[in-house]
């Protein structure tokens, strides 16, 4: 059992950007931070609840990938749609999702839109925060979905883009290829944000793909692609912006691969025995939240007190969220069969069965059935 060979890149441990060259005011800078911080605090709480046996089923966390999520999602404009995978809670929060609602879903409570039917890990909210109802079961199934949403924009002449977050392992299934191939042929505004956290569950990239980077696959699709460091918030924004603009300008799909790291296991049950201490140490020095916090204080000269205030608020919102979720009722068992089919204009009415005698009075039929034995087919 050999550990996967690792090439450690020379990513800096400090955010490089010069605050004066950034278009963001203090408030905006803190908005980035509070989304990242809220997600981290939320997940720490969720992990604790899981260990206390208070969560049904498994728990998957995105700690360590907050910069990739927030940096990318911050580029969306009105009418854009996106889908997330297991590790993008900070993107939800940046878009305004309520922590309490997320806890409620994790607790299996009667919280829309899932009302207890889906895991807390997933969310669809087209009209609200813009999360499309994608297929979150099978890996990469959301790439064809992304092509479909992008196709819808194109057909309607909307200036919007679709942003599909995806893991690096999720670039192996055929759906990744079929979806991206179709999107490129049709030149659709699909932006793929690949969170290359270097493992798919326990499987390292060199068992997942024969190329060093997901972006190396781009020539096969004739699309714009690049690879960037995913834990520096502003590096993420810059790279994601290039991709988003490419797609929004009608040049077709774009893919950005962000090298990042999953600080926790695949799920909280996973002890990560397959991750070398060397690799873990490298990325611990590059915790996106720590890097950004330090940058805010040291480079952007934001008073530590203001940041601590945000952190306290995060804790407060998470605690309030748990309380809210605890207070909600479970869905009623008798509702389990509801909402399977959407009402439709021509759903059968009692009178439809009034006169159902519709004889097949067709002399051709004996000939027809006889013909079967003679049919030469071949008309396709």
């Amino acid at each position, binding site marked *: 059992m050999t550990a996967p060979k690792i090439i450690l890149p020379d990513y800096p441990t400090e955010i490089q950007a010069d605050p004066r060259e950034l278009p963001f005011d203090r408030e905006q800078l803190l908005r980035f931070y509070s989304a990242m911080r809220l997600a981290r605090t939320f997940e720490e709480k969720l992990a604790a609840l899981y260990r206390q046996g208070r969560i049904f089923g498994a728990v998957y966390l995105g700690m360590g990938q907050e910069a990739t999520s927030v940096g990318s999602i911050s580029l969306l404009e009105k009418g854009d749609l996106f889908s997330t995978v297991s590790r993008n809670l900070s993107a939800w929060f940046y878009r305004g999702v309520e922590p309490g609602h997320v806890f409620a879903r994790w607790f299996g409570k009667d919280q*829309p839109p899932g009302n207890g039917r889906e895991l807390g890990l997933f969310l669809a909210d087209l009209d609200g925060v813009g999360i499309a109802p994608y297929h979150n079961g099978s890996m990469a199934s959301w790439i*064809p979905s992304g092509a479909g949403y992008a196709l819808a924009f194109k057909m309607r002449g909307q200036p919007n883009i679709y942003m599909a977050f995806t893991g690096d392992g999720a670039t192996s299934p055929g759906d990744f290829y079929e979806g991206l191939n179709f999107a490129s042929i049709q030149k659709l505004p699909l932006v793929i944000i690949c969170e290359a956290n270097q493992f798919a569950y326990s499987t390292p990239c060199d068992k997942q793909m024969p190329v060093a980077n997901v972006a190396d696959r781009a020539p096969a699709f004739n699309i714009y692609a690049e690879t960037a460091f995913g834990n520096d918030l502003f590096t993420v924004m810059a790279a994601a912006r290039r991709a988003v603009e490419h797609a929004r300008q009608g040049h077709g799909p774009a893919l950005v691969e962000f090298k990042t790291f999953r600080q926790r296991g695949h799920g909280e049950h996973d002890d990560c025995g397959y991750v070398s201490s060397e690799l873990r140490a490298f990325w611990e020095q590059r915790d996106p939240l720590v890097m950004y916090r330090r940058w805010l204080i040291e480079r952007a000269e934001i008073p530590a007190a203001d940041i601590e205030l945000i952190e306290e608020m995060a804790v407060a919102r998470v605690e309030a969220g748990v309380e809210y979720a605890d207070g909600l009722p479970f869905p009623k068992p008798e509702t389990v069969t509801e909402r399977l089919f959407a009402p439709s204009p021509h759903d*059968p009415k009692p009178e439809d069965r009034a006169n159902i005698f519709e*004889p097949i009075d067709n002399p051709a039929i004996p000939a027809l059935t006889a013909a079967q034995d003679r049919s030469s087919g071949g008309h396709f």
Partner: protein
Amino acid sequence: MSQMTYLQAISSALREEMRRDPNVFILGEDIAVFGGAFKITQGFLDEFGPARVIDTPISESGFVGAACAAATVGFRPVVEFQFIDFIACAFDQIVNYAAKCYYRWGVPVPIVFRGPTGGGIHAGPYHSQNPEAWFAHTPGLKVVLPSTAKDAKGLLTTAIRDNNPVVYLENKFLYRHYREEVPDDEYVVPIGVAALRTVGRDLSIISYGAAVHLCVEVARTLEREGASIEVVDLRSLAPLDRETILESVRKTNRALVVHEANLTAGFGAEVAAIIAEEAFDHLDAPVARVASLDVPVPFSPPLEMAMLPSVDKIAQAARRLLAY
């Protein structure tokens, strides 16, 4: 009214709905420039343009996934499978995305999956299958199988307007072999209402799709032998018209279930099970089934014909029940 083949009736419904509703678009392999392997969409590219008539790469999972997504934001895609056998390549997107989306999120997925099914044309194991049971077993999908040109048009019109994923299964043998008077303008046939093809007292034959024609012919034959047969054409498997099945069986006290798909765990088993549970007191004979043998569809005519249900096989089973 005008004479239409089963195939022309399908084209007609598609064309009418595309004229009526700009959100309807179609995609699939060779459907635009070529007009489809069976020419169902011939002329559509000229009338509706490349944005609404899309030739796709050979990527069933990819274009099904894309179409499902478009369906959740107001479009009504109709996906053509060149042969239904290839629906297996898009299976995950259909059973795991399309079927579950509304239940999970309350977001409807109005989409139609259509394509040619069935054997009898010597097309071998990969161009002859009848996959309805897989989908009828999957909660969240509607499954429709027209047996006549009139139903083909009316049911497809309804399917396109339905707010749920509908698996619309055409029979390729009927495409050009079956022809009848069909209304020229639009009409709907509700999904979930069976039709009686013959009315009778002595035996109910419950069937759907192409096999219905075999059953009707059996009814005619046995009529000459003095028996009165009621042929129930289900037309849709999900939702299922249980009332019509049960009323018929409670009247005739005898039931035979017939379909072209292979027997074991075919949808006929569901129909037989419902009868055995809910019409038990009315049964004067066992509930029998006639279907294809449990093997892949062989190419060679003698094998294929031995494998498929036939008028003789059905008539024999019917006589057995009548004599019971």
